[in-house]
């Protein structure tokens, strides 16, 4: 088992290196002079030179790349251009609000989608199923932005159930701000997830072992909830695991729209101000998380699926 985990981690290294190369090329080779774009047109050459020296931009590209790698290894991404704060501190302060938004949203979406998908698969081909599938497709076809705008208008403006905009850090206080974006996120995600989970379940119900289970005289409920669901749970867990890195990225749209000071908002501000250290750090941290969560998924598979061999 340990050997398997180690091997999977080793496989992740070229991907993480790839991410660093891609982001480095994007920002350092194609991105033009980041200092100049940050300081704007009014900066003097001396200002630019001073800042270039401070951030190591006067070195050759390969050296800059090595600096970048060294930053990643130490998990220290220097200071932000704009705020002069250590980037790591900014990330740490952004993770909390992002997680408070995305974690409940992911759990609720998964719970609701799996339940709807179960109902749909249980009544496969009947009116209930067709209706649910149709609703899911409709849900998928409405723009994210429309959900946000209408959600805010109806639930926070017309019916003042929630705060329109803003955030308070208190553990209880934050929910009056977070509830609405969480609702929007759940509504947006449910259409996609329901369809995915339903097709996974329907796929399972065409397998031979389902017929065997019925042939034993088991009830439809038992066949679906025990035999089918246990098999379907692997793809369900996988999909949830794949979402884990996105928990940390936060939601760019929702955070900026509702003014939640999370990771997404931080990135948007950084993009707006051409704050390269923040953008670079954000990209690489998220990508590493992505690779790690993929590895974790594989390992979980190996633990839960009796068929997977570790060799």
């Amino acid at each position, binding site marked *: 088992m340990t050997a398997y985990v180690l091997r999977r981690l080793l496989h992740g290294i070229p991907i993480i290196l790839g991410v660093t190369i891609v982001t480095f090329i994007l920002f350092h080779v194609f991105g033009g002079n980041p200092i100049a774009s940050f300081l704007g047109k009014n900066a003097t050459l001396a200002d630019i030179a001073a800042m270039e020296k401070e951030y190591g931009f006067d070195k050759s590209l390969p050296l800059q790349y090595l600096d970048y790698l060294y930053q990643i290894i130490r998990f220290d991404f220097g200071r932000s251009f704009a705020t002069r704060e250590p980037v790591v501190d900014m990330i740490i302060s952004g993770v909390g609000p992002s997680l408070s938004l995305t974690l409940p949203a992911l759990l609720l979406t998964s719970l609701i989608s799996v339940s709807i998908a179960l109902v749909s698969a249980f009544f*496969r*081909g*009947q009116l209930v199923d067709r209706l649910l599938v149709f609703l899911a497709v409709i849900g998928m076809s409405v723009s994210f932005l429309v959900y946000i705008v209408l959600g805010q208008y109806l639930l926070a403006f017309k019916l003042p159930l929630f705060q329109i905009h803003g955030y308070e850090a208190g553990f209880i206080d934050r929910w009056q701000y977070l509830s609405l974006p969480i609702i929007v996120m759940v509504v947006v995600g449910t259409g996609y997830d329901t369809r995915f989970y339903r097709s996974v379940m329907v796929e399972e119900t065409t*397998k*031979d*072992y389902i*017929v*065997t*289970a*019925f*042939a*034993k*005289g*088991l*009830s439809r409920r038992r066949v679906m909830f025990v*035999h089918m669901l*246990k*098999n379907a749970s692997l793809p369900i867990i996988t999909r949830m695991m794949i979402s884990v890195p996105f928990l940390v990225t936060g939601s760019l749209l929702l955070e900026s729209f509702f003014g939640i000071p999370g990771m997404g908002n931080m990135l948007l501000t950084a993009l707006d101000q051409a704050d390269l250290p923040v953008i670079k750090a954000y990209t690489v941290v998220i990508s590493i998380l992505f690779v790690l969560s993929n590895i974790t998924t594989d390992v979980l598979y190996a633990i839960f*699926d*009796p*068929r997977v061999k570790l060799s």
Partner: protein
Amino acid sequence: MNNLSSPNRMPPMALSVTDLTVRFDSDQGSLIAVENVSFQLRHGEILGVVGESGCGKTVTSKAILRLLPEHFSKITNGKIQFGNDDLVRVTEQRMRQIRGAEIAMIFQDPMSALNPVFTIGYQITEAIAQHRSISRKAQQSMAIDMLKQVGIPSPERRFFDYPHQLSGGMRQRVMIAMALVLNPKVLLADEPTTALDVTLQAQILDLMDTIREKHKTSIILVTHDLGVVAEVCDRVVVMYAGRVVEQGSAVDIFKNPRHPYTARLMESLPQSDRHSRHHRLPTISGLVPDLRQRPAGCRFADRCLITQQRCVQEEPELVSEVNAAHETHSWRCHYPLGGMST
């Protein structure tokens, strides 16, 4: 045919299928997969249902337990008499009591027919728990005992294995154990040996023969393999394109086939025997007709070597003959082969 000691009194039937018709509906229209199929299963016999793939034999066997997918298939006509029940009409609740306990079924590919994420012990005891209210311990010992009977070595250990940890032959034995653990009256075996190699095939067939002897189980053996039929079946039903085209005792069918299709199946047997380990039937030229376009005449007409004008225009009725051993032999052909009754 030792069960025919008193010639004039046919034994009561274990299962009797009359005029069974099954329709499949899809976006592309519907087709009749099985049409007016009738046959009877006697107590303690092994009845072979033979035909190429797509002829309706699997649909027939699944229809008996009403295991066809509900949302696009329907039994439109017929009767399946089992004891006092007509399985076409009994409630789902009664059907569930019958499934697994009174009529059990085993399938072609034991790897996919066993649930991969449960241990075999769980899957067998689950069948017991469904029908008997006995303690877990008793369930477990019943299951282990059954595993031993079907020839699984060290069943106490195997009980906790997952299907993928067993070999193909062992998996099929587990399937058989699962089907027989409640001592059902009837066993439906759908191509139980197809996925196995020849030595294992023989072992599984032996096992089924032993079971029949020991538990007096009546078995319907669905197969495309006449070699299998020759080895264990007492009587044979030959199906083609959703219809029964010939049926009779194994002796009659093998010695004196009347329908050209049966004869062709037989001809293809020894040759394919030499070439492959499975007695597949690829040597009959042409394909089973598309059931969506039903021909007016005999369904075998376009592949038959002796087709006449009449064969294309008019579908033959089932003709029966009783032989010296008082066994009925029937066929559906205008110009049957042979003709000299033995």
